[in-house]
C-alpha cells in the first residue's frame, strides 16, 4: 500500500518530472519496501497504457452539425445587426440619399410625376370628366323615367310595384312622375302598390303640393292599411291641415275600429 505522503512524488515519477533528489528518495523508498517494486511497475504500465490511448475519431456528422449550427448563428447575428440601426447608419444613409446625382434624379422623377398628375387632373380635364358623368347620369335618369312610365301602366301588380320602386331611385322626380304616383295611390286596385306609392311619396314631402295632395288622398282610401300608413305619415310630418280629413274618416261608419283608434291617436298628437 502506497501512503498518501508519496503520492505526489510517484505522480511526478510517472510523468518523468523527478528532480535528482526526488529520484534518490524514491529509490530509497523502493529499496526499503515502502513502495513495492511490482506496484510501481504496474502503475507505470497503467499510466503509459492510458497515455497511449488513441483519440476517438469523430464521424462526418460532427463537422456537418457544426457547420449548420454556425450558419444558423451567423444568420441570426446578421438579422440582429440589420435590426439595430445606429445614428452612424442613419447618417450614412442620408449621405447616400443626398448625393448630388441621386438628388437630381429624384427631382427629375418628382417633376415628371407632378407634370403627369397635372395633365391627368387639371381643371380642364376634370370639367370634361364631370360633363361626361353628368351626361351619363341624365341618360340613366331618362331611362328610368321611361321604364317607370311603361311599368306603371302594366296590368300586373308586380310590374306596377317595380315602377313605384324605380321612382324612389330617381333623384328629382318631375310632375309626370308625381302624377303617376298619386294616380297609383288613389286608384290602384292593389293595396301593396298603394302602400309602395305612400313610401315613394314620403321622399317628396318637402314639396307643399305633394303634402296637400296626400291630405286629399286620405278620404279616397278604403284599405285600412293605407289609411293607417297615411295617418302615420301625417303624424310624422306634423301636418295639422290633415286633421279635418282625419276627423271625416273617423265619422265614416265604414272605417275599421282599429283604424279609428289609430286616427284618434294621430289627431291627439297633431292637435
Amino acid at each position, binding site marked *: 500500500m502506497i501512503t498518501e505522503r508519496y503520492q505526489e512524488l510517484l505522480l511526478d515519477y510517472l510523468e518523468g518530472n523527478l528532480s535528482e533528489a526526488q529520484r534518490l528518495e524514491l529509490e530509497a523508498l523502493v529499496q526499503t519496501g515502502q513502495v513495492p517494486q511490482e506496484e510501481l511497475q504496474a502503475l507505470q504500465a497503467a499510466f503509459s497504457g*492510458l497515455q*497511449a*490511448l488513441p483519440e476517438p475519431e469523430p464521424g462526418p456528422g460532427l463537422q456537418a452539425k457544426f457547420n449548420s449550427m*454556425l450558419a444558423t448563428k451567423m444568420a441570426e447575428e446578421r438579422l440582429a445587426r440589420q435590426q439595430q440601426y445606429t445614428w452612424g447608419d442613419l447618417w450614412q444613409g442620408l449621405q447616400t440619399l443626398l448625393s448630388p446625382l441621386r438628388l437630381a434624379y429624384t427631382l427629375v422623377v418628382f417633376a415628371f410625376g407632378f407634370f403627369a398628375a397635372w395633365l391627368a387632373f387639371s381643371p380642364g380635364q376634370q370639367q370634361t370628366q364631370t360633363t361626361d358623368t353628368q351626361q351619363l347620369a341624365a341618360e340613366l335618369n331618362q331611362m328610368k323615367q321611361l321604364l317607370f312610365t311603361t311599368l306603371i301602366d302594366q296590368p300586373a301588380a308586380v310590374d306596377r310595384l317595380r315602377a313605384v320602386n324605380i321612382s324612389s331611385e330617381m333623384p328629382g322626380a318631375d310632375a309626370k312622375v308625381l302624377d303617376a304616383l298619386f294616380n297609383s295611390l288613389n286608384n290602384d286596385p292593389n293595396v301593396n302598390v298603394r302602400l309602395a306609392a305612400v313610401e315613394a311619396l314620403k321622399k317628396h314631402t318637402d314639396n307643399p303640393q305633394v303634402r296637400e295632395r296626400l291630405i286629399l288622398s286620405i278620404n279616397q282610401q278604403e284599405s285600412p292599411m293605407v289609411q293607417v300608413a297615411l295617418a302615420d305619415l301625417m303624424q310624422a310630418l306634423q301636418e295639422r291641415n290633415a286633421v279635418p280629413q282625419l276627423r271625416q274618416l273617423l265619422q265614416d261608419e265604414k272605417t275599421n275600429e282599429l283604424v279609428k283608434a289609430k286616427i284618434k291617436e294621430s289627431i291627439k298628437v297633431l292637435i
Partner: protein
Amino acid sequence: MLQVKEGNLDKLGLLFQRYGKSLYGFYFRITRNAALSEDLVQDVFERVLKYKHTFRGDGKFSTWLYHLARNVLADHLKKTKRAGVSTDIDEQDALPELAVAPEEALQKEEHLQLMEQALDHLGHEKKELLLLTKLQGLRYKDIATMQGCTETNVKVKVFRAINDLREVFTKLQAKGINI
C-alpha cells in the same frame, strides 16, 4: 477567440478545427455514444458564442473551453438523470469488435481495449479528471482553478485515479475478459 468575441463569427471555425475533435474524444469516452457526443460538442460551441463576452483573454482558451464543456456535461447528466435515462456503461455503445489482425497488433489492440474498459469502470469524477489531465492536456493548475482547490490536491486526486485505474486494469487482465 478574441476575434470571435469581437463578433467575427467566421473564426469559430478555426477554434472548432483546433478543439472539436479533442472535445469529441472527451465526450465519447464518457458517454460512449457518437451521436450524443457530437451534439454535446455543438452545445459547447453554442455556449462559446453565447458566453463569449465572459472570456477575458487572460487565461488559456482551452481552460475556458473545458470549463464550458464540463458544464454542458453536468447539465446533460442532470437531464438524463431526471428523465430516468440510464447511463450505465454496459448499456452504451459496445466497443468496436476487433478486426482480424496479426498476433502482435492484436495484442496491442486488446491492451488498448482493456484500458478503455478499465477507464469506464472508474467513477465519473476520476474518469473525467484523467481525461482532462492526461488525454486533453489540461494543466493541474488550470484544473485547480476550475475546481477551486490547490494544485497539490489535484495531483493527489490524479494519482489516486491512476492507482484505481491500475487496479481495475490488473483485475480485468487477470479475469482474462475476452473482448
